[in-house]
């Protein structure tokens, strides 16, 4: 098969397991983003793909070839590191050419590939500088160029943007995606920033505690998370959870408000659940009947929108509203959108239905 197959990877540092049976596949040309909180094993997984860590069990196949036991040099991969990892004593040109020289690529071919990379990344004017003379953004461009010229079968990115500031991070994100689209190889990108993960991924892999929690297209993971962890981790502003129990197909929230939710129709009474509500799935209404009563706590302007934090009888909620609307204050009512609300079982956190 063409593409990347990972099967049953396990690894422990001493007695601490960091990868517990990790498996997934990615077709040729896909952009895989592995996301999760720190310590979830995402970096170890990436380093295992690179051959910088050995795994205890499991197989890694790239385009049908088992690379699990190969040295990093023999895997035909390229990697971009969080701290850039440029060779400090070499010029930018030598940095980019180093991998090709080690592989005895002809001189003219090296020059051609460097020219290509310079064009794609706008680093032509930096070629004779040392890494220490570059800004953070320029260093990471050079590191991407160094990976690109190798024309590898697999691109690995280890949180490459997390040392850069917000504006630069966004620019480089777009350039990485552009280069990926152009080259058509598989990219595996590790990050702890879920928004970065969403915006880059074709395939989003959410990890926790050395396990994969969910794999899917970003929008599917966003709309149909498999459990409370994924629901709370993916999405900005974050989802709020309201404790409730089921009564005749309704969710009964704290304070007694009842919300009819379609997916609860067949659920036995008294089942303990949590209702997951994203800020753009709730709206502020007057203190009318049927709405959840609450008090405006803090409002935050976001530009086109405004985020209103409300303390309700059922718990804390955030409401996203248009900044055109008058700024709310004092007592208000909050209405959920029953179609969009997600229901999680307590205490397992598994999604219902």
């Amino acid at each position, binding site marked *: 098969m063409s593409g990347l197959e990972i099967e049953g990877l396990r690894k422990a540092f001493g007695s601490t397991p960091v990868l517990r049976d990790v498996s997934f596949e990615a077709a040729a040309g896909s952009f895989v983003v592995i996301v999760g909180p720190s310590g979830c094993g995402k970096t170890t997984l990436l380093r295992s793909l690179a*051959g910088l860590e050995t795994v205890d069990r499991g197989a890694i196949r790239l385009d049908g070839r088992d690379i699990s036991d190969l040295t990093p040099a023999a895997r035909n991969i390229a990697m971009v*590191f969080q701290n850039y*990892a440029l*060779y400090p004593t070499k010029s930018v040109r030598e940095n980019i050419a180093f991998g090709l020289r080690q592989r005895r690529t002809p001189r003219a071919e090296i020059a051609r590939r460097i020219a290509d990379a310079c064009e794609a990344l706008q680093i032509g004017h930096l070629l004779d500088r040392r890494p*220490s003379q570059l800004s953070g953004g320029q260093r990471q461009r050079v590191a991407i160029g*160094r990976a690109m010229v190798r024309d590898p079968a697999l691109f690995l990115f280890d949180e490459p943007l997390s040392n850069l500031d917000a504006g630069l991070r966004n620019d480089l994100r777009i350039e990485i995606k552009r280069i990926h689209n152009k080259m058509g190889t598989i990219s595996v990108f590790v990050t702890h920033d879920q928004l970065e993960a969403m915006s880059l991924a074709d395939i989003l892999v959410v990890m926790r505690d050395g396990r994969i929690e969910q794999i899917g297209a970003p929008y599917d993971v966003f709309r149909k998370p498999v459990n409370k962890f994924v629901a709370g981790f993916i999405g900005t502003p974050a989802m709020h959870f309201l404790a409730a129990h089921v009564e005749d197909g309704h969710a009964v929230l704290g304070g007694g408000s009842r919300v009819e939710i379609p997916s609860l129709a067949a659920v036995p009474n008294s089942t303990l659940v949590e209702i997951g509500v994203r800020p753009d799935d709730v709206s502020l209404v007057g203190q009318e009947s049927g709405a959840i009563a609450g008090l405006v706590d803090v409002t935050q302007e976001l530009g086109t929108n405004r985020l209103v934090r409300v303390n309700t009888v059922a718990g804390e909620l955030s409401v996203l509203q248009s900044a055109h609307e008058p700024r709310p204050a004092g007592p208000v009512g909050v209405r959920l959108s029953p179609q969009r609300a997600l229901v999680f079982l307590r205490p397992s956190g598994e999604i219902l239905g």
Partner: protein
Amino acid sequence: MRPIPTALRTLALVAFATVAIIPVYWMALSAFRPNAVVMQWPPAVLPGSFSLEAMRSLFAETPILSWLATSLAVTVGSTLLTVTIATLAGYALSRSRSRLTGLAGYAILIAKMLPGTLLIVPLYVMFFQAGLLDGRQAVIAVILANCSFATPFATWMMKAFFDGIPKEIEEAALIDGCSPFTAMLKTVLPAAAPALAAVTIYVFIVAWNDFLFARTFLPGGETMTIAAASTQFLGEVEMAWNKVMAVALIAAAPVFAMFLILERQFVAGLTGGTH
């Protein structure tokens, strides 16, 4: 805001200058004065009365060239040996993840505190038993002693510098097609040049200026280092003070020269940065 009063700051800096700078100034001044001017009381603190009298009599009456040659042999030998050991051990300590490393680091910290005075007695006994203290081959004993004294700090300096070179640089080289050994050779060692320079200067200075080991192990006469020889006129009944100052100045000159030439690398090495 000035968190401390100017007067206090000035006082502290003057105190510092007094204890650290004035002796050097006085030495340079006295070496080029007639002995009579040096001996006068109150001393003449400003420059003046230039004279080469001391220098001339030094080269005429003492085996100073032989002393310099001995110093050179001791220094070059000590430097080569120590820098080699410190580089290898520093790299090993920096890159190893094992328990052993923690222990070794601890041992270095302790050993760093051991002064030459502590080492000299056991070293003397060991060298004597090994027959190293006879005649000119005592130079080897001095080299080994300097190495023993300088290795801990030199290793620590190299380790600290290697620690500052991210291991991702070697990993990038591995992915770029290097073996572990060529990765170190082609990426880490070049980056460590400032640290190598710093350690070289450190060992050079320690070895060149060593007084204790040279005075104890070397037979004396012509086979003596300039640093050790420079003090042997002290306490004589009729001291030619300007001559003493001149020897001291000649002994100090290479250190100053080396420092001024390599100063930039040295500072970079001390601060341990790769950028």
